[in-house]
């Protein structure tokens, strides 16, 4: 495969694979607590960080990590309060974030629109070896936290009140999730861009939960799907000369649609087969039907998320 004789393609591939593996590992907790779109919001704010970095001539990625981490913590504290005004506060933060980013990038002068596009929609092929090192190190840290703390993060995402009565450090775990979301968004912006970050966190999870029965199984399947979409996306983008980030996301959504169609067909066949066989084996088919019922409603939200992400274009 001559495509990967170039160093920059190798770097793009490594970056994409690392992010494809990490984003769903974090995203599953966000999906579970119905915060699928939080990555989008944090991404909007991260753009202000990029603007600050460009303006001050400091590392845009580093500034984006800092600014989006502060924003993610603020969002988490608002969520914890559970105030109705939190919704409006989130909207202010998101649009303020993206408007501030566009203004600051504009102010920074020399490096203009091309640069903005690179952050909004990703440009993994221009990643330097130093950038890649930062991405890999941060991704490994996020991944390790998500895997090691899985039982605790599962508990707070599944039933926060129970977790509190169990004496878990719920607030610290929530803040950890907020900060790791910010970190994941920022490192993913090099691959798929700030506007498509949520897709990598959410779509593989939405696909995995169509076919899996448990949380760990969903998590591992989603990570595998993220890896496949990222790897195949780099190859396809290089071969067909399409935008890398968009290609990865389209592939992930394509896999989702195929799996959704497949489970629908399997369910229909299972129902037909179960019907004449009488009441005895009714327990198993019944489980299958019930399992996919709530999963079928979730993707509507997730697809809505990626629609929304592309809307500001």
């Amino acid at each position, binding site marked *: 495969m001559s495509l990967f004789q170039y160093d920059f393609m190798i770097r793009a591939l490594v970056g994409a694979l690392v992010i494809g593996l990490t984003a769903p590992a974090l995203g*599953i907790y966000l*999906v*579970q*607590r*119905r*915060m*699928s779109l939080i990555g989008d919001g944090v991404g909007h704010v991260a753009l202000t960080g990029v603007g600050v970095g460009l303006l001050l001539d400091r590392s845009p990625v580093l500034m984006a990590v800092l600014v989006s981490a502060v924003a993610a913590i603020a969002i988490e504290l608002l969520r914890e309060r559970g105030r109705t005004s939190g919704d409006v506060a989130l909207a202010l933060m998101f649009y303020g974030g993206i408007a501030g980013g566009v203004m600051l990038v504009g102010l920074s002068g020399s490096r203009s629109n091309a640069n903005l596009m690179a952050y909004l929609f990703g440009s993994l092929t221009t990643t330097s070896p130093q950038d890649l090192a930062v991405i890999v190190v941060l991704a490994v840290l996020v991944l390790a936290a998500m895997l*090691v*703390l899985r*039982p*605790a993060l*599962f*508990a707070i*995402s*599944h*039933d*926060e*009140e*129970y*977790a*509190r*009565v*169990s*004496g*878990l*450090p719920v607030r610290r*775990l929530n803040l950890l999730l907020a900060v790791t979301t910010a970190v994941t968004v920022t490192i993913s912006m090099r691959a798929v861009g700030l506007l498509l970050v949520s897709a990598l966190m959410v779509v593989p*999870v939405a696909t995995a*939960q169509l076919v*899996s*029965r*448990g*949380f*760990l*199984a*969903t998590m591992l399947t989603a990570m595998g799907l993220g890896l496949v979409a990222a790897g195949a996306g780099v190859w396809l983008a290089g071969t067909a000369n399409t935008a890398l980030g968009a290609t990865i996301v389209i592939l992930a959504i394509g896999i989702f649609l195929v799996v959704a169609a497949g489970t629908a067909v399997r369910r229909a066949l299972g129902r037909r087969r179960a019907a004449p066989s009488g009441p005895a084996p009714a327990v198993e088919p*019944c*489980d299958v039907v*019930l*399992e996919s*019922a*709530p*999963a079928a*409603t*979730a993707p509507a939200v997730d697809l809505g998320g990626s629609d929304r992400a592309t809307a500001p274009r």
Partner: protein
Amino acid sequence: MADSIVTVEYGAVAYDDRPVLRDVSFRITPGEVVAVLGANGSGKSTLVRAVLGLVPLSAGRVTLFDTPQRRFRQWWRIGYVPQRIGAGGGVPATVAEVVASGRLARRGILRPAGGADRRAVAEALRAVGLTERAGDPVVTLSGGQQQRALIARALAGQPELLVLDEPTAGVDSASQDAFAEALRGFVAGGGTVLLVAHELGPLAPLITRALVVHRGTIAHDGAVPEPAGHHAAPGHEHVHPHAPDESSGLWGRP
């Protein structure tokens, strides 16, 4: 062993300046099975939530295992069973995964699950009769089975006190019996129980003491009220209508 499992002294709770509980005092000692009874909106759920620290007190104090609630850290001694399972965002979780989260209080968040944890989870599943469903997604269980899964989660932590918020509300009778059986086993092992109930059903023989909450205060503290009150026994309300004097006697109307 602690002299007192739960002590509430002059407890008061208000939501946005609207008083829900006023001047509530009681003490639960080891081995008691206490039912908190009362009509909808009487404040009975708020009472147990305040005991657990999920709702802040506006006055008074709560003591858990002889430790003021603010300084209480031994949460593994308490098993909490909420009214219903967390909805979640559609990510499936197996029954065993949900029950296993009941071990976290005991083993801490960084230590991976060991043999003792797996045995406790298996034992808790067996106690509520859900062993065969361990690998199934919780959403495929009936309401009563989900409730049993939540009890198994609390039992998996091997607590000394079980706190249950309306555990049998809307639960089919087979699950109510399985639930009563699990609770009987827990009590026989020396456990203490604090449960909120709208109706006692098959749990009635287990209850050693009843606290009746009415309009934010404790109207009765003692034996389970004899007339069984509003819906306190299954089918009761269908057999004969409540006489007005019956309810005034039970609720201690001023």
